[in-house]
């Protein structure tokens, strides 16, 4: 198999699902003729036409609102929010409407939409093109929150999201789009939502991460291996539903746990994982659960020194791993 990029995984999933099921269509800003600002939808307009690849106004609330209405009328919309930073105008549609339609109708209606959004920093995107927003949506019952970190998972998870009967928030780390390469199996396959993946086996500590941070944690783990410290790295992959079983099994094996994310520390999803470990695996722990995250400042700064200060990198993660190993 040839190596492909993560963005190719997005593109292949969309094309295959649109080919497989004519109810699937995409909408968003510049997704049509331009093929999306990151070219995730490149080629879909020519292949499937304007009716199924719809350019929208710059109005995120409308993009999601239209998608919800279309989903309730029997189609399967995949809405692209150009940057996760711009998703906030659609928060009400997502939280008050999409997440609650099944519940408020006592199961009579569903809302099978996928909302894709590139998130995260490290690309000098500054305050408005770098945010991590997963914790906002992980807090909302009725939503699934998926964050792939490899090209293979991107395709398999996006196909699963499109076939899911409930609303799925699908966050793609923009720095991984072309940085991360890997094999993508040919043809139709699904990666299950709700299953974490152990990317590296280890016995000294368990590290949980998603998106770009998975790769930084793997780099840090390689560094610690030179000192004889074996770190287990778990790619959480789906924030909700969370694969607690894999998380707890890993902690029971290693007795030390760390969560790494680039969202800011306070109220980040690392707090939830830490709480679960504290509640359900306390007797297995030899050290307090550690969180490595961005500082509690309003946004990622633009200039490089402060961007580096904000974003956890392999060196900072490795230092935290060493400290935890020595506890």
């Amino acid at each position, binding site marked *: 198999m040839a190596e492909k990029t993560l963005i190719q995984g997005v593109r292949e999933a969309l094309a295959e699902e649109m080919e497989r099921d004519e109810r699937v269509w995409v909408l968003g800003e510049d997704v049509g003729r331009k093929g999306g600002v990151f070219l995730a939808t490149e080629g879909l307009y020519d292949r499937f036409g304007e009716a199924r690849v719809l350019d929208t106004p710059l109005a995120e609330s409308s993009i999601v609102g239209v998608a919800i209405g279309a989903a309730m009328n029997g189609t399967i919309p995949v809405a692209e929010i150009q940057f996760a930073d711009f998703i906030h105008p659609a928060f009400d549609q997502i939280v008050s409407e999409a997440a609650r339609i*099944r519940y408020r109708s006592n199961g009579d209606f*569903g809302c099978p939409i996928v909302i894709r959004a590139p998130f995260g920093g490290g690309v000098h995107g500054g305050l408005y093109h770098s945010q991590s927003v997963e914790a906002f949506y992980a807090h909302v*019952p009725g939503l699934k929150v998926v964050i792939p970190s490899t090209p293979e998972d991107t395709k398999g998870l996006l196909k699963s999201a499109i076939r899911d009967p409930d609303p799925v928030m699908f966050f793609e780390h923009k720095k991984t789009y072309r940085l991360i390469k890997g094999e993508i199996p040919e043809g139709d396959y699904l990666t299950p939502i709700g299953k974490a993946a152990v990317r590296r086996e280890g016995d000294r500590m368990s590290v949980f991460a998603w998106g770009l941070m998975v790769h930084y944690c793997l780099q840090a783990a390689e560094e610690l291996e030179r000192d004889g410290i074996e770190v287990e790295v778990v790619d959480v992959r789906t924030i909700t539903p969370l694969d607690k079983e894999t998380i707890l099994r890993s902690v029971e094996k290693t007795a030390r746990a760390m969560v790494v994310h680039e969202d800011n520390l306070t109220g980040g999803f690392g707090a939830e994982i830490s709480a679960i470990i504290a509640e359900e695996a306390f007797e297995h722990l030899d050290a307090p659960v550690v969180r490595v995250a961005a500082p509690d400042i309003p946004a990622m700064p633009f200039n490089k020194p402060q961007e580096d200060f904000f974003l956890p990198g392999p060196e900072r993660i490795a230092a935290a791993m060493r400290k935890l190993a020595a506890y």
Partner: protein
Amino acid sequence: MAEEEDERIQQEATADVDEAVVYAEAAASPAAEDALLNVFAEA
């Protein structure tokens, strides 16, 4: 709209609401634990 038509629509709507209220008040309350259902399709 004629006044008679307006009156008829209002009477029909009031009757529908009254009927729904009677039905709801006569129905058993849902089980508390059923509040956990229908969050997701598989629930």
